[in-house]
């Protein structure tokens, strides 16, 4: 059966005009030419052919298994601007430089790096969400997407990207052994606490407060003990608890991310 015969048979069965133009196999002319439908189909084919090729970042994310509905949320994260990425690299280089040029012993040399490292993802989280940093904030509020999910996706994106850079940088720190990654849990704690506070305050203010508290804690701790003790097991356990507390606070107050509050 030719496609024209099939079309004619289906049209008869459905009681509709035939779709295909031109005479059928039996020489009959079509009942109607649905030009509107044909034009729409061609427009769709054209749209698919004209669709821009996805960028490298999008291709990587899809390869990593990120869903089609999540990829645009990640790539549109305001903190992922080139200026932020450049700032991250400069900050990491500065921290590395401080860690490698210090004349003190090995343990003290990495204090600057361990202190600065958690602040870098924190800055990203501060710039990932909120009316002051995201021009599309009000558009996002009017959309059905959960503000909690949007913030989480964006925060994980910037934290993931900056953590990867910092982990690579950690390998370049000349001394300290496993101590070189002692910034990781404090970094998660700082991020988690910032996100919890961002449900109440501007994310930049929240991040600023957490950063100051972190610097004060390290300064006091280093003054009272040595660097190894400062970033030792006690700090790591405390960081774990702070991460959990922040996550609970963020989850419990998630609804505050879904509307503009005039209160």
């Amino acid at each position, binding site marked *: 059966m030719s496609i024209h015969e099939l079309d004619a048979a289906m049209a008869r069965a459905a009681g509709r005009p035939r779709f295909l133009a031109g005479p059928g196999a039996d020489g009959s002319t079509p009942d109607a030419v649905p030009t509107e439908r044909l034009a729409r189909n061609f427009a769709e084919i054209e749209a698919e052919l004209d669709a821009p090729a996805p960028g490298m970042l999008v291709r990587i994310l899809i390869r990593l298994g990120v869903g089609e509905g999540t990829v645009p949320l990640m*790539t549109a994260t305001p903190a992922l601007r080139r200026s932020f990425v450049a700032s991250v690299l400069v900050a990491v280089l500065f921290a590395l430089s401080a860690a490698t040029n210090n004349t003190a012993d090995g343990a003290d040399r990495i204090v600057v790096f361990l202190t600065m490292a958690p602040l870098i993802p924190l800055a990203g989280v501060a710039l990932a969400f909120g009316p002051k940093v995201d*021009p599309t904030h009000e558009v996002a509020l*009017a959309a*059905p997407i959960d503000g909690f999910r949007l913030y989480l996706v964006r925060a994980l994106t910037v934290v993931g990207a900056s953590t990867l850079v910092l982990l690579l940088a950690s390998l370049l720190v000349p001394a300290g052994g496993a101590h070189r990654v002692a910034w990781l849990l404090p970094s998660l704690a700082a991020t988690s606490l910032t996100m919890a506070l961002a449900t109440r305050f501007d994310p930049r203010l929240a991040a600023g407060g957490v950063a100051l508290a972190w610097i004060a804690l390290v300064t006091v701790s280093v003054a009272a003990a040595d660097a190894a003790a400062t970033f030792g097991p006690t700090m790591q356990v405390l960081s774990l608890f702070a991460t959990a507390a922040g996550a609970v606070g963020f989850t419990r107050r998630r609804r505050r991310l879904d509307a503009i*509050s005039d209160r």
Partner: protein
Amino acid sequence: MTAPTIALHDIRHRHGTTDALAVDRLVLEPGSTAVLGPNGSGKSTLLRLLAAVAEGQNGTIRIAGLDPAEPLYRTAIRRRLGYVAQRDGLPPRMRVEAFCDYVGALKEIDSARLRRRWTRWALQQVGLLDVAGERIGSLSGGMQRRLSIAQALLGGPDLLVLDEPLAGLDAEQRAEIGNLFVSLSETATVICATHHAEELAGLCHRVVVVDGGQPVFVGTPTTLAERAAGRVWEADTQAPGAVCRAVGPGRFRCVGDTPPAGAVPVAPTVADGYLATVRPSTPS
């Protein structure tokens, strides 16, 4: 599914210590509604509440019978909503198509192909398909406003809340967007705040005039125009106590109670009715 009806009761909304909005009762049926009012009159606050973007402080709001204060209902309302904020809120470095793709993802259109189809359709509606690959920052102000309208159309919402959609558009674009609204309002509830009384409000099923944070008129454009009946004239001079605007060299169209000698009475328009409503004449 029929387009949603919106009902507000006993709304009292404050910004800090200032009363921003006070609505005893307002019901907006499906079809188109223009919200007119002077700057700072509470239009944007009203629209933000209608779009469930701002939290109501007290009173009740029902959108399609649902309370937007309830998180689940708010999400359900937002699934039917297209919203244009007063400020465009467009990321200048993003490309037009990528921005629509992003908003499509915010609107839970998970399939990239489907988002692309919606994007092309929405951009076509506002005449921006040709600049789909351009960076937003390189577009003119009018084009950016039309892009804001396009993002609101993604997903085919049946509730459109548009704050100053015609701002920055030229006369031809305003006419095109006006036609689009007329077409959309056949199947959707369309609410737009505007300063263009004739061009947009005249096309709508109903008009709400907000002044001093309160709705002072709710009715049809014809009824609004009739409010100025017998109080509109054209003259060579401006009359004290009347609201006058130039309509030509040395010629003024005025709305007021006491026309000067030689004034020619003219038929009132929606804009005249609006001026007569928000700027009542001085009591004699």
